[in-house]
């Protein structure tokens, strides 16, 4: 949807629908940690749900889905750097 100034973005209904989805995901995250004896599966599900929330907020709330691709790349590079630097830093600390 494009407004009077040519700015593209989500509609009010889309924003509210996304917030509802994010709320349900948060509720699932809260409930799933009480499952007994399935730690590996719970960890995997939590990682996926967290990534889904991250993606939705960045793409819709932060408008990356509607913006120039360069902005998405700028942010993706930051996230990529954070992940790789995190892994490297963890290894350095663990070896020290």
């Amino acid at each position: 949807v494009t407004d009077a100034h040519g700015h593209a973005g989500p509609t009010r209904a889309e924003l509210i629908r996304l917030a509802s989805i994010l709320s349900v995901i948060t509720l699932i995250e809260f409930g799933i940690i009480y499952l007994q004896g399935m730690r590996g599966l719970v960890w995997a599900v939590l990682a996926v749900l967290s990534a889904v929330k991250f993606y939705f907020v960045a793409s819709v709330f932060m408008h990356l889905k509607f913006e120039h691709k360069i902005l998405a790349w700028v942010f993706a590079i930051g996230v990529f750097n954070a992940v790789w630097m995190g892994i490297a830093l963890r290894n350095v600390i663990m070896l020290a």
Partner: protein
Amino acid sequence: MADGVAQGHHQPTNTGIDSTKLGFWTFLSSECVFFATLLVGHLVYQHNFHTGPKAQDLFNIPMTTVSTFVLLMSSLAMALAVHYAHKGEHGSARRWVLFTALMGLVFLGFQVLEFSTFISEGLTLGVSPFASSFYALTGFHGGHVAMGVLWLLSVWFYGGKHQLTGDTALGVELAGLYWHFVDIVWIVIFTLVYLLPSTK
């Protein structure tokens, strides 16, 4: 060109992207690395240098889930503020900006409550590397939320005398980007710091 600047019009760029917006996204990109260092430090210390009270015994997951929900809803409020600013509806934009700031204050209230509970249980700043890294990570995030609240309140006050629409909508959008980023960081912290160590 001087007239354009004086009237707040955006200058044309060869990418077609507003330079302020590109610069702000670059800043947010660098913030990812900043929080990654704090997060990794905490994750390492959590499992290897843990003395004093254990995380699983102290975390109040239901309360943290509620505070997470409040921050998520504040992101919705901020997105609506940006939506109305771009639509030219000044009153609605200003109202949602204020609502976002108030929810940010509620989130900070939850954090103050959590910190004071932990400290009374013996998890003081210097009791262990786990405690230090936990307070550094969540404290810096809380500091970012506090900065965001101040920014939003300044936008709200500015909106008392000026329109938050038209060219000024970019200012609301940048405040929104910062706020959503703070929300994204919390999404990661909530999962890695609170939920994963609390699994059965």
